[in-house]
Every structure is written in C-alpha cells, then in structure tokens.
C-alpha cells in the first residue's frame, strides 16, 4: 500500500476482516448492526488515520454505500441477511448506477425491471462497475416506472451477480489496468424481496448514498502520506549532478505549495464534518471532492516529474535498474485522472456550489 502497488482482492478482504474483528470496519454504522454509532467527525478521523498508516480502508461500496443504505431503508430480513456479511466483506458489493448514457445525468438510466410473478426481470447495461470482477452482489438503480418524471420511476434492487443472464465484461483503462467493467442484464430474475425501500423510491436512496459518499471522498490522509513519501524519495534520489532532487528550489516550492493546499483542505474537512448535522451534508462538502481530487492528481503528477526519465519505463520488470516507484508513477498518474470524473464529476461539484451555496 505504502509503495503504491495495487492490492489483491485477498489483501483487501484480509484487511477489512481484521478491522472488523476489532470492531473497526464499520464504526459509523448504527450499533445494533455492528457499528459504534460514530459521528461524522469520529469517522473522518478514523478514515484519515487508516489512510495515513497505509491500511486499506474498508471497501467503500460495502462500508460507506450499501451498508448504511440497508441499515436505513432495508427490511429486517435484509438487515439480518446482508449487514453482517457486508461489514465482514463476506459479500463483495459492486455499485451498479452509471450507464453508457447515464453518467452525470444519472436519472436518465434505462436498465429496466419489470414485475413477473414474485420476481423482477431486469434487462439493460450498467457501465463503469468498479471491481465488478470481484463482485458477489451488485446494488443497482433500475427503472421500474417508465411513465413518470425520470427521478420518480427509479428503484433500488440488490442482485446476486451469479444470477443467470448477468454478465460482467472487463474494460481496460488507459494505465493498462482492469478495474472497471460493464455489467449486462439479460432477463435476470431477481426476487421481489431484494427491492430496497419503497418501489420507485430509488432516487431518494441514491441521494442519501451519494451524500454519505462525500465524507471520505477527499482522501486527505493518503494524499498527505504520498506527498511525504515523495519528499523522502526526492531526498534520496540523485539529481545526476552530485545533489538530490530535494536540493532543487523548484521541487521544494512545489512540495510546499501542495502541503499548504492539503493543510487547508484537511482543516476544511474537519470544519465540514464537525458541522454536518443530522446526516445532512455540509454545503461545503463539494469543496472536499473538488479540491481533494485535484490535489490527489497533482501529487501523482509530482511523482512522475520526480521519476523523470525513468517514468517512461512502466513495462519494465524486476530486471530493471530503475526504481519501482518511478516505473509505476505514470500509470498511477494516468489512472487518477478518473478521480475528478467519478463520484459526481468536478463540474457537477462546481454546479452544486454555484447553485445551492451561492444561489446562482
């Protein structure tokens, strides 16, 4: 984790199960469902500390997204069935919201669910399903009423990814990685019991979920850790002229600027979580997503520049004489361009700020 390598599924599961055994995987969940009922502030500090220590944070799809949704909107059976396994990552959840033509405009989604006897029959396609290749279950937004206003005809269904007719197709990203997938539904039968909350109430749930997502969306702790590591690497990397990269005033200045922006962001995050009353996100939480992802990207760009000529050697194996951190720096930089696109793009965040905060 600290070295910036990709984790395996097993490592992610092991980390979450270790935390869960200590009661620390989902401390922000209500106590009756295995949490500790922590406030946003406590949760924030906990997340930051995990990131700083290089502990893989509990899978967001489970811990931050579907878990709180089921705890809040689910039936007793759903809570019993899913919450313990969700906390312990016995079930790996995927998020099936976006579609090819429903990105920023999520409400225009077209995957349909039609009632047939005791089942829903689902047809359509989800896009961008992160780590869907590991997914056991997928929480989806589906259109259950095509005849009303877009937002009013959407429901949330929990779907077993081993169901007949469900197919996961990997999509390669620009860094060569396979972390997103298309998920296709061809007459997939889903038991009626797997509806979450009210029929056609999916949009309310989605808003609740995306609101929760915003705490922890600015990875201040991990960005700080990576910036500190960048500084260490700069200190130990030769500039080819008898000094180190950290002797360079330009490198120093760039690090100082980034540190200052991160400090401002960290303090803003504290202000935001300390004042988000009753689950209503503080309006400034959009600032966290916007600035947090920009800084994450800026630090990854710094790493590429520190790596210098070695940064192109991404395909080299262990026989290479170039440092591993340098070789993976550009794929990481390219991969992180995603951060300002997903989870509500940064343009959408600006729109939230200008509309709801500034009243424009």
């Amino acid at each position, binding site marked *: 984790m600290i070295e910036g390598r990709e984790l395996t599924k097993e490592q992610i599961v092991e980390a979450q199960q270790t935390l869960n055994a200590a009661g620390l995987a989902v401390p922000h969940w209500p106590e009756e469902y295995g949490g500790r009922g922590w406030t946003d502030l406590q949760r924030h500090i906990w997340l930051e500390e995990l990131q700083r220590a290089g502990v893989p944070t509990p899978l967001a799809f489970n811990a931050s997204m579907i878990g709180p949704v089921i705890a809040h909107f689910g039936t007793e059976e759903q809570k019993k069935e899913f919450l313990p396994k969700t906390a312990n990552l016995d079930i790996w959840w995927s998020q099936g919201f976006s579609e090819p033509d429903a990105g*920023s405009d999520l409400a225009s989604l077209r995957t349909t669910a039609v009632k047939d006897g005791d089942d829903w029959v689902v047809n359509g396609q989800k896009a961008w399903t992160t780590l869907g290749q590991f997914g056991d279950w997928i929480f989806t937004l589906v259109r259950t009423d095509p005849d009303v206003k877009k937002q009013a005809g959407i429901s949330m269904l929990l779907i077993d990814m081993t169901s007949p007719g469900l197919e996961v197709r990997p999509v390669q990203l*620009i860094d060569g990685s396979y972390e997103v997938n298309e998920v296709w539904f061809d007459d997939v039968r889903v038991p009626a019991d797997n509806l979450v909350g009210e029929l056609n109430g999916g949009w309310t749930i989605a808003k609740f979920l995306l609101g929760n997502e915003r705490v922890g969306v600015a990875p201040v702790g991990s960005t700080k850790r990576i910036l500190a590591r960048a500084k260490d690497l700069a200190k130990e990397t030769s500039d*080819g*002229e008898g000094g180190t990269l950290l002797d360079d005033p330009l490198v120093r200045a760039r690090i100082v600027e980034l540190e200052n922006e991160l400090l401002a962001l960290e303090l803003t995050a504290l202000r935001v979580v300390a004042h988000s009353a009753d689950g209503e996100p503080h309006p400034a939480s959009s600032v966290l997503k916007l600035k947090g992802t920009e800084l994450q990207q800026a630090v990854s760009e710094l790493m590429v520049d520190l790596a210098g000529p*070695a940064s*192109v050697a991404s395909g*080299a194996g262990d026989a290479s004489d170039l440092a591993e951190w340098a070789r993976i720096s550009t794929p990481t930089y390219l991969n992180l*361009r995603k951060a*300002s696109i997903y989870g509500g793009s940064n343009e959408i965040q*600006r729109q939230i700020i200008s509309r709801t905060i500034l009243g424009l």
Partner: protein
Amino acid sequence: MDFTYDDEQEALRDAVRGLVGKAYHDYEQRRQAVKEDPGFSEQQWARLAEMGVLGLPFAEEDGGVGAGPTEIGIVCQELGRTIAPEPFLASVVLAGGLVSAAGTPEQRAEVLGALAAGERLLAFAHDEPGRRWGASAEQVTASADGDSWSLTGVKEPVPHGARADLLVVSAALPEGGTGLFLVQPDADGVTREGYATYDGGRAAKVAFDGAAATPLGEAGLDVTASIATVQDITRVMAGNQALGAMQTLLKATTDYLKTRKQFGVTLNTFQALNFRAADMYTSLELTHSLVAWATMVIAAGDPDEVAEAAARASLQVSRGGRHVGQEAIQLHGGIAMTAEYSVGMFVAHLTALDHLLGDGNHQVRVLSTKVADYDALDPLDV
C-alpha cells in the same frame, strides 16, 4: 520570420498525412500495431522509407534528402496527429542526427544510408539510471586497448533499444568527456531487455560488459556539445510531434462536446465546458507559435540559440500539453479513461514526450540560470 509553408512543404505534409492517416486514422489500428513487439508496423516503416521520409534530415551524400528542420517538423506533426508509433523521432531525428553530427564521412554514408532505406533501425543508448536529461555519460565507461574500444555499464531506458539493429552509445571517456560509439547489439557483452512503455512505445535496458565498440567520428573526442545540440533539435521535433497530438485532442474534444448528450442536451450547451475548450485552443495556439519559432531557429543554426529556443519551446509544450491533455480527458468524462478510446492514449503519449528529454520544470531550471543576463526577450534576436 515566415510561419507559412511553401508549396513543396504543403505537398510533403499532404503526402505524409495521407500515408500516416491511411495506417492510423482509426485509433484501433494504432492499438493493434503497438500490441506486439516491436511496437510499431515494420510495413509502415518501410513505406516511410520508400517515401523518402527516413532520410529527410541527412545530407544527400550520406544517402539522405537534405531537408531542413521545417520539413522534419512537418513529419513529426503528422506522426503526432495519429500518435503513429513508428520511431522516427528516436531513430531518425535523435540517433540518426548523432551519426550525422559526429560520424566520419564513411560512417555517415554507411549507417545513414541504411537507416534512410529502412534497412537498419538505430537507437540512442544514453539515459542512465539515476541521471536526468543531460548530454554527458557517466556510468557507461569506454576503455581503449590500442585501437580497439570497449564499453561497460548500463543504459536505461533506451527507446526502441531492443529492436534496434545498431546502437549509438554515449560513454565516459578515459581522459574525461563523453564520446559516442557504434555498438552491434548482438556483440558479446551486450544484453538487452525490452519492454513496453505506457504509451505503447518500447524501451529497453541495455547492459554492456566489455562490449566491442567503434568510436563514432574521431576516437577519444569529447562530443558532449554535439550531443547537446542534437538533443535540442530532438526537443523541438518532439514539440512538433506533441503539437500534432494536441491538435487531435482538441478536435476530438470539441467533436465530443457537440455530440455527447446528458440532461437531454449536447454537452456544448454548457458554457462552462465550451470555455474550457476555448482555453485549450489558447494553449494550443501559444504552443504552436513557440514550436514553429524554435523550428526556424534550428534552421538559422547557432547552437546556443538552438539550445535556448529548444528550452523555451519545451517549456511551453510541457505546460500546454498537460493542460490540453488533462482537459481533454476531463471534458470527455469516463470514456476517455478507457484503453479502447483514443484520448487517454494521446495523453499518455504526450506525457512520454514530456519526459523524454526534460519536462517543463527541467527547462525552467535551465533557463533560470541565465535570467539575470538579459533584460527582455526578443524572438528576432535569438
């Protein structure tokens, strides 16, 4: 200063555009071409040779065409527009440029003739682990035993080093300074490990262990200055290539804004996005101007002026390229993150060009050492 192309230059541009476009107008073609080693199409390389493109920079008596920097820049721009993977920059401009600058008449005729004919691919083995973008060599050392020379040490990354038929290698000379050598890659004491780079290119680690080497030009001569000048020329040509890629990125972005619908309307309904495209255009135009100017400075030929112009152009290409590339991805949204779609790979290629011979901050560092020595810059003065 004349920024326009004459008829012949336009004809060259159209011819190269036709050839390159045929091979790579559909991004999938490029994707297939870089999948397997050597990471480009040998067939396309042969076609470029046939067209005379691979011999453009070299003197006629060396088997070349004797064209000027504007023509070479045109080729680079056209290759950049489709991010054609053929190693024109690495093999012809850089490695070939060194042979042209430092080789004896016999070496030039032999090596450059074969390069121009597409029969022999050259690579310049220069970068050394832990060193950054300089003109000298340190870790690979040359030693002489009578008239025979040998090299020891590691070069990495060497662009197209595994496919190369002949290596041009820089090495620290016994009496100080840096010399250039020709090394047969299958000689005893040479090992090569090739790999793909993130933009679909190829590079290699090349290790020398007492490998036999032929001095390029006069034996034992310090040619650091020649290396620096050829690197500067390559910087400007890399800038031309980046410019072509940036043009394609802006076009792809504006096309996408006009066709992608969200919220029931095309994205160009949102002024916020159109303004960002306008800013991309601004960056592109500024980059275009500096690259064209630096290309003309090469034609004038003074090495110090070429060095300064190359640094200034590279700085703008770095800044402008990052701006245009990052915005191209952002304005596309998720689709630009996929390997199947062209935009992400264009951005990857710009990033690779940016780190080939020194990124923007490297150029700032170089230029800032002299900032107190002049009052204002005058492009006509350089």
